[in-house]
């Protein structure tokens, strides 16, 4: 890969993302112009008083309500995209992602557990405990799914996804029980199940940013090793790749990205599956390109979807519902197309 062209592409993508963020901030019930958005953000960042002629209400809406939500959409989308790329590459399975493997459901179970424990009087600081419980639930699910599928040494698509579906079904029942326990406060749990970014705060951004950065850097650091994994364990080992260490590190990284995303936004399906899948068709399977591109594309896609439900649609549809409604049919088309092509890589 040419380093200079990679840097150019990266700068272009960052520019596109910044423009998209600025544009998204203008949209909503209260229309704000792009220059106003920029001066509000500039004033906030430099901690200077607002320039005259800008509505202070608009400033509060843009800086305290829209911006955290917009940034959360970008970060969550990017994290889901990267985690999907990691899962697909490490499990040699173009259909793997945190959603199909049940990891998202595991994370949601962990998050719901915190809410129920709080109802029963256990005081935990939610900003920290929700991500921690979500990660615990996610990593437990991953371990269980891998254990169930491990009878089949190749970890084939079928056994992994079946194991994921089974575990997710059990966890869904468990979440149902938690909902029953939550009684009147059931709405908060339903929020996790459908996925929504409406509750995103600056505190969430403080947690998501370093996690996203860490995840992307770890994945990039191992991206060439990840490519080599596509040729099987024996061949990869003979090229000097520590296959076991690589699997453990990257599965944990992918799970961490998913869990943190879920702890902020709830379950948002199909982004992690479709973004890397689609990109692989467009730019090839090289993870050195795929991982950064998955971040940008996932971020842009979720920002688009969230802006759609926040500012364009007459009623706010939960974003998880929206991505599943848009992504599900797309997935069906991919599935049918692969059967027609006779590709057996499934």
């Amino acid at each position, binding site marked *: *890969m*040419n*380093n200079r062209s990679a840097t150019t592409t990266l700068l272009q993508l960052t520019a596109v993302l910044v423009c998209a963020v600025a544009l998204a901030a203008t949209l909503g019930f209260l229309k704000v112009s792009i220059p106003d958005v920029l001066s509000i953000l500039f004033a906030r960042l430099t901690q200077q008083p607002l320039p005259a002629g800008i509505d202070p209400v608009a400033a509060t809406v843009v800086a305290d309500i829209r911006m955290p939500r917009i940034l959360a959409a970008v970060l969550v989308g990017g994290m889901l995209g990267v985690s999907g790329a990691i899962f697909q*590459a490490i499990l*040699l*399975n*173009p259909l793997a992602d945190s959603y199909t493997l049940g990891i998202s459901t595991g994370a949601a179970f962990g998050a719901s557990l915190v809410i129920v424990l709080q109802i029963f009087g256990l005081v935990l600081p939610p900003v920290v405990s929700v991500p921690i419980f979500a990660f615990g639930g996610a990593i437990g699910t991953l371990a269980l799914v891998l254990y169930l599928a491990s009878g089949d040494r190749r970890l084939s698509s079928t056994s992994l996804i079946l194991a994921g579906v089974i575990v997710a079904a059990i966890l869904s029942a468990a979440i149902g029980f938690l909902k029953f326990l939550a009684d009147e406060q059931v709405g908060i749990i339903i929020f996790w199940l459908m996925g929504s970014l409406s509750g995103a705060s600056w505190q969430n951004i403080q947690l998501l940013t370093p996690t996203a950065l860490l995840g992307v850097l770890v994945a990039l*650091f191992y991206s*060439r*090793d990840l*490519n*080599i994994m*596509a*040729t*099987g364990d*024996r*061949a990869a*080992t*003979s*090229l*000097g*790749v*520590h296959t076991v260490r690589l699997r453990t590190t990257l599965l944990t990284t992918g799970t961490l990205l998913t869990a943190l995303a879920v702890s902020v936004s709830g379950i948002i399906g199909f982004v992690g599956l479709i973004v890397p899948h689609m990109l*692989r068709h467009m730019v*090839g*399977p*090289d993870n050195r390109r795929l991982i950064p591109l998955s971040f940008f594309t996932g971020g842009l896609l979720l920002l688009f979807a969230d802006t759609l439900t926040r500012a364009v649609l007459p009623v706010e549809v939960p974003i998880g519902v929206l991505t599943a409604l848009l992504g599900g049919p797309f997935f069906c088309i991919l599935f049918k197309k692969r059967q027609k092509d006779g*590709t057996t*890589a499934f």
Partner: protein
Amino acid sequence: MAPPLSEQDTDQLWSLNEVSFGYGTTPVLHKVSLALRPGSCYGILGPNGSGKTTLLDLLSGLLMPQSGTIEFKGRPLHSWPKKQLAQRLALVPQDFMVRFGYSVREVVEMGLHPHLHRFAAPSEKDQALIDEVLRVTGITTLADRPVTRLSGGEKQRVAVARALAQQPTVLLLDEATSNLDIHHSLEILQLIRQRFEQQGMQVIAVMHDLNLASFFCDHLIFLKQGQVVCQGPTEEVLTPDTIAAVYGVEAEVTPNTFTNCRQVSFRLPVNP
């Protein structure tokens, strides 16, 4: 720079001392002792399930012996850092499978992995090396094709090209030509033989076909039920007696002036 490795005993590639290995409770290799030296093309032969591939996996460091010791170049095999080992040993596996649509060139470039710094791009010299191995393995015209769309034989040639791009001191072949037609088998084996004779690349090959082994190898090791039955220079050990003892078939071994090596014909014993 790391201090140079002690490779005092360069006269020895591998020395195995009473190596045993099994999967679960099923023993596969039992107290195998071997010394492999540079200068011979080694062939490992034996019936299905005799432990040939397991032996190769032990030599490459993929598996750890359950008892006994393996040394490579005078140093315990498992004390070698993986990257340094990968700079010296390359493996052509039996069924080379690639799960995503990497181009042939990308797959061959993976062979450079142990020689490149983590974030380094291949230099012009590396690119020339890739061009050269694509050419000698006859896959230049396939270079931009996705490897998932190739036939079994083409994929196998990609695997050989990738192993050559790794510039190993020792090449390990695991029935590397069993998926190839006779023309491509001979072409690949001859190419590897040339590298052995002209550039001193050592070769250890698990083989299935006795006639190809006789054409290709200087030294044969016969395994049966996890033990070395006999080993030695090809012309000494490739005999009807050995073949009867190892495979349980009657064989006739005749020097052949056409191929310039010993050729074997078989039949099942009349009174088993």
